[in-house]
């Protein structure tokens, strides 16, 4: 058994989890949600083992380093963070059906990592710029933030769906009826954004300290840095709009979605569309 087989099993688990969560949403069978959660948990456990194994494999190859150094590894880690964050949230807030809006992100990340032609799955040695203890701190803080923002984006989408369902006066038994109360979704979105914002800030700061160690400049307006601060501005405005101007509901839901689009661009778009210092993640 090697790590890539385990990652294959993970992808399958996440896919099944997403399918069952969607089944819960559509058919409102409680059992489907339980199975969905079960697959998510199995998936996360297998993936944890897979990440550990890949780490070990890199040491066996004599180029040992944490598996957080290229696009493949970061996508895998993103799926792991998102799922873990979601499972934690489900246990804490008992809003099971949210999985239908979150697990597809994890599936998409794993599937893209596994099947896209431009993604290199090889374990490769660390270039000098990445040989630093800040690597772990920086990547982990950023990706916990990204994972939380993915969940917040899913919640925002869910809020808007539910709201449009109510507006159209659909009966309670239509599929939007099975979603949590608007007030509950709104509150969860807010809490998730707060959590993500904290970690994004930490991610930007660890990145700045590392950049200063490696390049002699803590901030050089490289596209990745700039997009991370754009994302930070978006969530900062969202929090201010809520705390001081009392925004809630659809407006916050939209901001959660816009915020996640910005996260997505920071993570993905910058690597593929713009030139810059953060080129490690591009393949």
């Amino acid at each position: 058994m090697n790590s890539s087989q385990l990652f294959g099993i993970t992808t399958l688990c996440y896919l099944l989890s997403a399918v069952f969560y969607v089944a819960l949403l559509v058919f409102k069978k409680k059992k489907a949600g339980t199975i969905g959660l079960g697959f998510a948990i199995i998936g996360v456990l297998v993936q944890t083992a897979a990440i550990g194994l890949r780490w070990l494999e890199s040491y066996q190859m004599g180029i040992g380093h944490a598996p957080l150094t290229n696009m493949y590894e970061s996508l895998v880690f993103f799926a792991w963070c998102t799922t873990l964050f979601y499972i934690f949230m489900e246990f804490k807030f008992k809003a099971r059906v949210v999985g239908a809006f979150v697990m597809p992100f994890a599936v998409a990340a794993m599937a893209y990592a596994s099947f896209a032609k431009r993604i290199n799955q090889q374990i490769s040695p660390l270039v000098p710029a990445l040989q630093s203890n800040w690597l772990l701190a920086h990547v982990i803080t950023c990706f916990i933030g990204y994972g939380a923002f993915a969940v917040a984006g899913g919640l925002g989408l869910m809020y808007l769906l539910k709201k449009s369902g109510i507006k159209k006066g659909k009966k309670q038994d239509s599929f939007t009826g099975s979603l949590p109360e608007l007030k509950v979704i709104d509150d969860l979105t807010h809490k998730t954004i707060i959590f993500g914002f904290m970690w994004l800030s930490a991610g930007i700061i660890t990145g700045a300290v590392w950049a200063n160690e490696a390049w002699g400049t803590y901030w050089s307006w490289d596209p990745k840095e700039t997009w991370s601060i754009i994302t930070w501005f978006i969530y900062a405005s969202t929090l201010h709009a809520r705390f001081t101007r009392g925004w809630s509901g659809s407006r916050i839901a939209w901001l959660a979605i816009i915020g996640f689009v910005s996260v997505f661009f920071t993570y993905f778009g910058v690597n593929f569309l713009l030139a810059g210092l953060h080129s490690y993640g591009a393949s």
Partner: protein
Amino acid sequence: MSSRKKNPVWAFFASVRLALFLLFILAATSIFGTVIQQNQPAAQYVKEYGEKTAHLFQVLELTDMYNSWWFLSLLGIFSLNLIVCSLERIPNVIRLVKKDNLTIKTEQLARMKIRKTLALPLPPEQSIQRVTDYLHSRGWKTTKREKEGGVLLFAQRGAWTRFGVYIVHLSILVILVGAVIGSPTFARKVLHNEKFAFKGSIMIPESRETSFIYSFASGEKIDLGFTVRCNYFTIEYYANGMPKTYLSKVSVLENGKPVPLKDGSTVHDLKVNKPLTYRGITFYQSSYQPYSDFLTVLVDKKTNQKENRIIAGGTQIKSKILPVSFGIINQEVRGEAVQRIKIWFSDNQVDPAIFWVHNGQKAIIKRPSGEYELTVKQLYATGLQVTKDPGVWFVYVGCGMMLLGLFVAFFMSHRKIYAFIREEAGQTTLIFAGSAHKNKVGFEKVFSRLVDEFQQQMA
């Protein structure tokens, strides 16, 4: 306060509306600089975007937009907004923190959302003591006041957490101050002292030294005030050919003598991610340059006499201290890097030795005149980025404050507990009531546990 409030300029800068607008504008305009490559030569923009658009870029300073007058002005207004907005609100927060909570009307307690009324089996005096002791044992220090019809106890925790958000605001200002202090532009144009803060670079060939660097901003020499020598440079590769390490062994010299550095040694292994800081100036491994010359070290094994020379490929030299001559007659090159070197070595007594050695590897040569050790290595220059940023500690302190402030603002709250004890028709009753300015659900749990355990203690 009231006079300030009437001032429209003050009100403008104090508004959250402005903050929201600025955050939006900063986010939106920042996108330009990620799409338009920054700080390229002017001709590049003309080629890529055409004459007219390139001219527009120049007028709007979009080719160096994060240093443009309008972007810096936005940041300036943003700072002003942060300051005024915080000054406007902090007095109110101080009032809330210092407030005498015992002045509350006891009827209000009955209307608070989080509350519980208990009947106590003890007379009022004893009850007050029990409640006070209990709360104290749970970390709630109470104050007491006689009220109409009974006695009110009050305790609060985390009042200071109301400042959390202002710690975050202040942290942003501290970071911006740090950025200004460390800005080479500020040092050059405002302080007229380029040595105060600068970024620059220098190429130092192996075995050579420098006491100045070239500024990025002006291209002019900046005197370091000490000397840096590159003793040695090498690149190590992984088996697959990827570079593994760029390593420069550097020394710092004062008055011609090497000084001990951080770890006590006079030689620092300078690598990417492992810079060297000396007297506030930091050196980073950033590039290198291979030459066609060679660095040679010749040692007489018997006497340990040593001679360092630089020679060009395809030439030969005569040692100044030993009775030998040697030269480089061929080399094997991959890219710009020399792999193996063919050496000609003679002591003028027997036929010269001719042999291949790997770049930088020692060769032992036995001749009738003695035993010699020769090392020949392709000459490199190391490219160092050199930075002096006296503001960086402000930035780091600001970053720390920001994380602390965010944590306090998001995850801590100002919690209050009231206990009102009175006697009615021979029965002592106790009203517990509480409030939190954030995370009310979490506080409700804490509150009910507190009350439940008190009940158990009384029973």
